[in-house]
Structure formats: C-alpha cells, structure tokens
C-alpha cells in the first residue's frame, strides 16, 4: 500500500519551526544525517507533511524528492497526522499466533478507520506495527506508547473506553 497522505491542514507553529531549524543547523554539514533529521522532525511535528519535508529539503540542501523517497520507504515515517490517542497493534509473529490480527480488526471496526488512518475528529489513529519485543505479553498493543498485554478482541471496547472513546 502506498503511504497515506494526510489531508488535514498543516498547523505548524513558529516554535516547532525554530526547533526544526536548530536540528537542521546541527546536522546540515553531513547529508547522511538526513534520516536522523527526519526522525527528529517527526518527533517535533508528529508527522512529515509536505511543508516540513520542504523545510528539510531546503535546509539539508537535498532534492525534496529524496526526502519524500526516504519518507515513503521507511515504515516509521508518517505522512498523516497521528490522533491524540494513537493505538498501535503488534502484528509480530508471537502476537499474531495469539490473535493480534483479531484485535486489530476489532479496533478497525469500532473506530471505523484502517491502518495509518486517523479519525476525522483527530482523536484516534490506528497503526499496525512490527514486533515491539513484548512477546512474553503477547498479544499486545500500545496506546500512546503504553503497553497493554495478554489481550483478546473482547477486551478492545474496554481499552477504547479507558481512553475516552464514545460511540
């Protein structure tokens, strides 16, 4: 699947731009640090919209297509914003054999969004991720980085409710 490009308008602030400029200034002498700059840019903005990629391309003095090519190659980079609550389901082997696929389907069904998508109100986003290494707790998902383990699909509504989901 091609990487999803978010359609919500860019809401970058001056403060974010200053932070990115500082990151670029620190790294621009070494073009091989492009990915590191992109990773930090994503930390700052939450995703890499066209406006941010253009700043990076200009700042690092590389073609924008190169930035975009890198952004769409690596799973970690996102072109669409994450929701306030980002749910990431591990589909690594250990979790998969213990039913994480069902958990993902359930989330998708309830939230009405697919992988790499954000609900229209910007509140929830859903990601399918690779092994996060918590295989002992399989199947797991993370909500804004916090791990929930040993789940079943039936636990999904409760997890969502815990994070303020209302049907």
């Amino acid at each position, binding site marked *: 699947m091609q990487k999803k490009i978010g359609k919500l308008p860019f809401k970058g602030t001056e403060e974010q731009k200053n932070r990115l400029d500082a990151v670029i200034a620190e790294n621009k002498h070494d073009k091989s640090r492009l*990915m590191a700059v992109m990773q930090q840019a994503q930390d700052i903005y939450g995703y890499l919209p066209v406006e941010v990629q253009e700043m990076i391309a200009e700042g690092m003095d590389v073609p924008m297509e190169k930035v975009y090519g890198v952004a769409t190659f690596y799973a970690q980079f996102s072109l669409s914003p994450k929701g306030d609550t980002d749910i990431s389901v591990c589909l690594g082997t250990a979790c998969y054999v213990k039913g994480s696929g069902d958990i993902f389907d359930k989330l998708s069904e309830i939230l009405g969004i697919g992988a790499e998508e954000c609900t229209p109100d910007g509140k929830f986003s859903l990601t399918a991720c690779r092994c996060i290494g918590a295989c002992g707790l399989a199947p797991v998902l993370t909500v804004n980085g916090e791990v929930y383990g040993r789940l079943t699909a039936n636990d999904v509504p409760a997890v969502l409710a815990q994070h303020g989901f209302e049907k």
Partner: protein
Amino acid sequence: MKTVAELNAARAKALKTVVLRKAEEVLDKTVKSDYKRNVLVCGGTGCTSSHSDRLVDKLNEEIKANGLEKDVQVIMTGCFGLCALGPIMIVYPEGCFYSMVEEKNIARIVKEHFVEGNPVTELLYDETVADDGSIKSLDETDFYKKQVRVSLRNCGVIDPMNINEYIARDGYQALAKCLTEYTPDDVIKVVTDSGLRGRGGGGFPTGRKWALTAPNKAPQKYVVCNADEGDPGAFMDRSVLEGDPHCLIEAMAIAGYAIGASMGYVYVRAEYPIAVNRLDNAIKAARETGLLGKNIFGTGFDFDMEIRLGAGAFVCGEETALMTSIEGNRGEPRPRPPYPAVKGLYGCPTVENNVETFSNIPQIILKGAEWFASMGTEKSKGTKVFALGGKIKHTGLVEIPMGTTLRDIIYEIGGGVPNGKQFKAAQTGGPSGGCIPARLIDTEVDYDNLVSIGCMMGSGGLIVMDEDTCMVDMAKFFLEFTVDESCGKCTPCRVGTKRLLEMLDKITKGEGTLEDIDRMEELCNYIKANSLCGLGQTAPNPVLSTLKFFRDEYVAHVVDKKCPAGVCKDLLSFTIDKDKCIGCGKCAKNCPVEAISKTDYVAPGHKLPSYEIDTAKCVKCGVCMSNCKFNAVSKG
C-alpha cells in the same frame, strides 16, 4: 583511564559492588561485598512494559523506610530472558527469583525478606520452590540450567548504565589485551581459530570476514554493527544492547583494531528506545573514561563510534542495504560484489557484524579460541541465543551450546507446548527460514543441520507451533511480511513474492489447484535464484519448507477444500451437534451476525430445542464455539 593498570585498579574497586551476584565463575570470592544484599530488577523492554521501573522506585522507598540503604543495593539490569514471567526480580546472595512481581508485594518482600531474612516463598517463581519449601536459585531451574551464557553473560547481572559494573566483570580487559599484547593479525587469528560465525543470518565465519577486510588499503575503514534486528519474535540483540552495551563497544573497538578502522557505526532499530538510550549512555561513558576516542590505553589506537537509527525497514538487516541507509538513503541493497570488505560504507572497506556476533568477541579474546571452539558442533562453535516464542510455555531468551537438540530446547528449556497440545513444528530464521517438523525434533540445532533440512539459523527466532497452526497460513503470514518489506528494487522480489502470496491466498481460500502448487514451487525456486539480495533470495523459504514437510496440508486445502488445523476461515464451517445442544441459546445471543437460530428438534434428554447455524450468514468468527459450555459447536 590512560593505562591498563588504571583499568585493573578500577576493576578491583568495582568488584565489591557486584561480588554478591552469582551466575559467574571467575569472580574473586574473597572480595568483600559493599552490601548485604543485591536486588536485581529486570529493566529489559518486556519487563519495562510491565512497569518494572515502578518496582525499583517502590523498592527504594521501602528500603529507605526500613533504614536498609547501606545493606541493600537495587540495580536495574538488562533482560533475564524469562519474559513471560515479568516483571522479574532476583535477590542475592540467595538467588531468590520473584516473578510477576506487583508493586503491592514490595513492602512485604522488603520486610519479610530483607529485614527478617525470610524469602516470601509464595511470591517466588513456583519452579524455584521445592515441595519441602527449600529454595532453588534461578540457575537451577530447567529454563536456566542447560544454558551457557557467553553472549548474554552480563545480561541480568549488571547495571548497564554503570560502566564500573562492566569493568568489574573483566570489561575492557579484552581490548587492553589486544592493544598491548596482540598485533591486529593476532586478533584476527584468535577470532578465526575460535570458529565464530556470524550470528545474524548466513553464518559467515567472522574471522574470515575480518581477514578479508584488513589488508585492503584505504584512508578510512569502518566497523559497522548491525543492530537492526528485524526477524519478528527475535530480540537477542536488543537484550545485549539493553543489558550489556559496553560489551558491544569493546568488541567493535577490537574489530577496529584488527582491521585498521577508527570509526564505528551502530545501526539500531528506532523501535528500541531503551536499547538506544543505554548504548548512547555507554558510548558517552566510554568516551569520558578514555576507552573510546584518541590514543586508547596510550597505545596510539583511536576509535570512536556513532549510533544511527533505523526507521522500520526489515531489508536494512541486509548488509548493503544497511550501509545505504546509514548513508541517508532509501535502504535498498546494492549488488555484490564488490563486497563490503572492499567497498562498503561510503565506498570504504567495512566489516559488518551483528550484535550477538560482536558480543562473543571479548570472551573469545580473554578465554582463548580453544575455549570457545570447545563448545558447539564441528562447524558451529560456541553458543547461540534463541528467542523462544509462539506456543511454548517459557517464552523468552535462552543461550545454549550449538548442537543442542530441538527437543531439549522445546521441552527441557522451554517447558513444552502449553494446554496439552501436540507440538507440530518449529520455525527458525523468521521470514527467511523454514520449519522443522515434529518428526525431526531430535535435530541438533546448528548452522549446517538447519540448512540441510531447508531451514536457516537466521538471527535465532524460534517460533513453536502446535496442532492448531495451519502451515499454509503460516507460510502466508511470513510471505505477507516479506511482500510488505520488499524494497521494490529488483523484479523477482518485488513482483515475484507478491504473485507467490496471491497463489497462497488462493489456496487458503480453497480456490487453488494442484497445478498451482507446482507453479508455486517453480516460482519459489525462481525467486531464490534471481533476487538481488538475501531478503528476496530467502523469501520463499517458508513456503518451500512447508511444502517439503507439510505438502499434504496444501493438498488438503486444494483437493478436499479443508484446512486441517481449522485456521483458514474460508474453508471452515461451524456446526452445532443437535444432540449435544441443550438449547441454552448463548451461542445465538452472542452471534454477531445473527446466523444462529432455534430449530424444532429437541434432543432426547433435553428440554429445549437445539440451535443451528446458517452457514450462508456465518462469518466464522468462532464466538459461538467459545461461548458453548457443552462442546456442541465444532468446526471443520
């Protein structure tokens, strides 16, 4: 730290903080410990996920409350390996092993165990408490006793954030020995003689790799550590990074000395924040201590290193793709030759090894090639770390001598298959590997035996599958992974694996033909022979190996339109045994699609009419089956 003497002095001093901890043979037991007790809390990713950090805070709080600060030292270590039992903590000198510890238990442990001296047996891992109430240490459990820890020797033993604890356990002694006693060629000879082979995939002899790089003249050479552990379910590299980061630094510096490189890069998955943080901390500490940087130990040898973060691309585990990625590009592999030994990172001669490979180096230097070569099999020396996962009781990390049988790994160490299910097969090597069927359970696991049965060691992921696993579905799962992770550069992998997946999909839907199976096999062989890099060349392995050992399952999907394991939804049908059904209606109530309805039939001995499933409406979710307490619902 400018001299070896200073290093030795630092070791003598630091020894007092670690001497209580067992699990090590060489420590000088005459040294008196600074503390009465050492409490080691696992700070690996698994246990951190279950908030082991809060346990440390709580412990310190309680220890303070009981005035034990001078008696009890609390350390957060790397992974112990028994992730399924997390969060874990061990108390020395007894070696008491508390598993699945909860915050609320802490006060009690501190009071009863630390103050009163009576371990809280009911909170200990049950296997460590004998029927007579006597306590075994962790090393005596089934999970640990067959393990031999070389790569993981410091994991779960030392504080990875404290360079002195590493130094206490002979840290940086190997580097000192290399720089002061060995020529670069001597180092390469020791590594070569040890028989160490690359732990990340194909098992290329490490010494030979170094020897091929060393003679290439270039103004700059590099040592690269592949810590882009991508096999789903494998996490031994992460454990080393989290539990023993200095070991990697020391090993890379040794490699730098051996091949004439002054710069190293560690390429780590960004999904490993704890590992990155600890490695970063360790690099800074080593730099401050003078163990990295210019003129190490006053020998004139310079070495420094930098961390580069991956961003989620499995293919970057392939050595040329990894280098392309370090250079800031899409991580697409490059054709070989030229090999990295000649033209690697930034076009310079480069040695690339993975974390586990490097983690063996300091011990090989200190204990000698013969010691290492005495473990393992004829062509696979030393130990190997496996990540046990899937349908096995003890999921986690184990390090065992090469040549241990699969049976020992699964049953003795792993505790067998849970819920009384039958062991069916084990998958090794992740998406590049294959499966070992139950009938080959006595295979001695080493590089060559695995290859001979169409498997691959890979990085050491070992996924156990039971009777409920459909091998066609499993092959499909791995192929979905490679299709997803294919970089898209070469035709066979980009298009070929996709077509292969589509054929598998057809089969799992019951739409395949016997000819499809043959065509699939041909396509597998084509992809193996024609792909640009290791990812593509090994992508068909899960299909080929399941075809080899479980062809009958494929045939069942195609001819009988049945999934023998009852996994492939399109081939499943759920039925209610009308004579077993008591008519409670729980299945119908819970059916998400209202596919279950009441019949007119009342079974003899029952009062209510039984239910039946409308197969046209049924979505095969299995909710009815899990809700039926009378085993009246069956699938097939």
